[in-house]
């Protein structure tokens, strides 16, 4: 083992990742050291500061004109697309964290309460009212599905949610940043797990509807681990083929290797299954509706927006850098996947009766559209996909923020029938939902239209006309269920015992406003962002 030099580390390029992961470690430390009373607020402040600092670092790097580098012995490539994706992820993290931190809609927060705090609250309650406690707490226990619901301190301030969620979100975010910039498959695998494991936990932490939340966590975990095993087997086969897991080495080996090509294509297929699962594309989407519905809505918002960005970032990089030279060999298979994804999303979306499930199926259809752009291995396809990810992310975060406002007596009212006549009860919320639904459907003057137009144009230019026709038809079908919700909100009478629409606190208001404004701006003046996305290219 002589002559092994320590790999050079470009700290300037890595700054965003280091800030986020360092912040996550500090957050874990604070969780252990701070007293319960100040923990939640401190953690929120820390998280927002870290995300803002990382965002500043990305902007500084992007505007400084620094050359793209591959650092840490080729483990991470900090190039144009990576910086764009980092910027997108961090920008989306701001409204997501604000939604997570909201206390106005659900008193005490939407997450499980700290057992210590619960114990204190219960002890205080015991001192106040000894007699009524037994019946009250047992009913709370049964309605919460056996979990501690945090509502035991009736009449007092509700028990605060656990503040571990901030550390988990920061770790997931760090994993996402690494995932879409990783230049070799092993780094990509480790990042995949770093981003997934905190998300599995976050899904199971809802304060209300414990059983559904836990069920979604188990499903997400088992299917996620299953798919990452496929990813890993693909990695192993590609290692056997190319004697390296660096993306550029795989590309070199594909051009002239003595090993059988079956290794390359079997490896590619298994690898792509793992990636498509994370992006909830096509036939690998089965976890999406269940997890979107069962997880706390703020977590769903974070997951729907950021995981999709990170997964498609990785897909773009793998397709372009490692398999760009063999594109004619494998693209036919992906045609089928893209069509399956679009059709499944649109057709099953029609039959849904739950708003969160409906948005989940819509995200499957959108993943199909995104795959269209990702399959066109051209600069135009790359910039269109990057723009689509940014536009879709902000629309989704704002939409889930609005979903969390419509509440019945037992938490969120997500059944479609509960949304009837919302236009009369809460005109502002209904108007915002209408606007975002139009954006998802791709109506002009919204970001959805610009994004779809860019992706379809790129696909058309790369000779995928039949796919574009399918995509247009599917868009029309999908528009039906978006418009159905709008009709339901405005043209039907509100039910007598319908849900109430909470007045959002400052956090949720800011998050929703940000999403709506970005959706509008990207629809009206998309050139600024499109100009940035244009002309980016992967290193290697």
């Amino acid at each position, binding site marked *: 083992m002589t002559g092994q030099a320590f790999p050079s580390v470009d700290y300037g390029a890595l700054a965003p990742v280091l800030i986020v992961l360092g912040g996550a470690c500090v957050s874990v430390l604070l969780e252990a050291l701070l007293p319960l009373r100040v923990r939640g607020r401190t953690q929120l402040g820390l998280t927002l500061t870290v995300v803002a600092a990382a965002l500043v670092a990305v902007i500084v790097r992007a505007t400084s004109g620094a050359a793209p580098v591959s650092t840490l012995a080729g483990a991470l490539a900090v190039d144009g697309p990576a910086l764009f994706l980092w910027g997108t992820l961090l920008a989306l993290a701001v409204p997501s964290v604000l939604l997570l931190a909201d206390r106005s809609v659900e008193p005490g927060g939407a997450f499980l309460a700290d057992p210590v705090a619960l114990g204190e609250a219960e002890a205080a309650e015991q001192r106040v009212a000894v007699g009524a406690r037994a019946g009250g707490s047992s009913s709370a226990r049964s309605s919460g599905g056996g979990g501690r619901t945090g509502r035991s301190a009736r009449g007092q301030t509700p028990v605060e949610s656990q503040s571990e969620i901030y550390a988990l979100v920061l770790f997931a975010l760090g994993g996402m940043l690494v995932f879409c910039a990783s230049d070799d498959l*092993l780094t990509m695998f480790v990042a995949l797990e770093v981003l997934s*494991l905190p998300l599995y936990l976050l899904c199971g932490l809802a304060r209300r509807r*414990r*059983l559904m939340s836990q069920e979604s966590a*188990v499903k997400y975990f088992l299917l996620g681990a299953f798919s990452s095993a496929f990813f890993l087997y693909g*990695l*192993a086969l590609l290692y056997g083929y190319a004697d*390296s897991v660096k993306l550029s080495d795989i590309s070199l080996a594909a051009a002239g290797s003595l090993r059988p090509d079956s290794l390359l294509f079997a490896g590619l297929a298994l690898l792509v299954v793992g990636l498509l699962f994370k992006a909830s594309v096509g036939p690998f989407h089965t976890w999406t509706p269940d997890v979107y519905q069962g997880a706390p809505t703020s977590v769903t918002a974070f997951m729907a927006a950021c995981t999709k960005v990170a997964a498609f970032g990785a897909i773009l990089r793998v397709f372009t850098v490692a398999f760009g030279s063999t594109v004619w060999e494998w693209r036919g298979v992906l045609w089928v996947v893209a069509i399956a994804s679009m059709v499944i999303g649109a057709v099953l979306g029609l039959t849904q009766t739950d708003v969160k499930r409906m948005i989940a199926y819509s995200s499957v259809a959108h993943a199909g559209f995104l795959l269209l752009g990702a399959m066109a291995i051209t600069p135009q396809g790359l910039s269109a996909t990057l723009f689509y990810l940014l536009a879709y992310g902000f629309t989704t975060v704002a939409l889930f923020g609005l979903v969390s406002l419509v509440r019945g007596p037992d938490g969120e009212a997500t059944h479609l029938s509960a949304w009837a006549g919302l236009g009369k009860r809460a005109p502002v919320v209904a108007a915002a939902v209408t606007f975002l639904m139009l954006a998802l459907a791709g109506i002009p003057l919204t970001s959805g239209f610009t994004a779809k137009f860019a992706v379809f144009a790129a696909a058309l230019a790369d000779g995928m006309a039949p796919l574009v026709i399918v995509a247009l038809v599917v868009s029309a079908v999908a528009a039906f269920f978006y418009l159905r919700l709008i009709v339901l909100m405005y043209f039907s009478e509100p039910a007598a015992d319908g849900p109430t629409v909470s007045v959002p606190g400052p956090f949720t208001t800011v998050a929703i406003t940000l999403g709506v404004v970005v959706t509008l701006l990207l629809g009206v003046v998309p050139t600024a962002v499109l100009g940035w996305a244009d002309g980016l290219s992967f290193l290697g």
Partner: protein
Amino acid sequence: MSPTIYLLLSALLFAIGAVGVLVRRNAIVVFMCIELMLNAVNLTLVTFSRINGSLGGQIMAFFVMVVAAAEVVVGLSIIMAIFRTRRTTSVDDANLLKY
């Protein structure tokens, strides 16, 4: 003996694991099948490392082991949580979310 036979063995183990995930009902057993798949990958990596004459594959096997250990921590805690509320770990009983 040719190292290729280990590739066949690991493919077989991976397939056994995958089938196990699909047919078993107990969440713990499903999870063990996933671990079997990960270990099949480890065997593949080490075999290719031997065939290629490079050490990379063996290093990667260590990475996989560490990640698998982290996955066990998270996975078992989630399964524990659902066992406490439901008193069962059967994946067929977790059926509130469907269609």
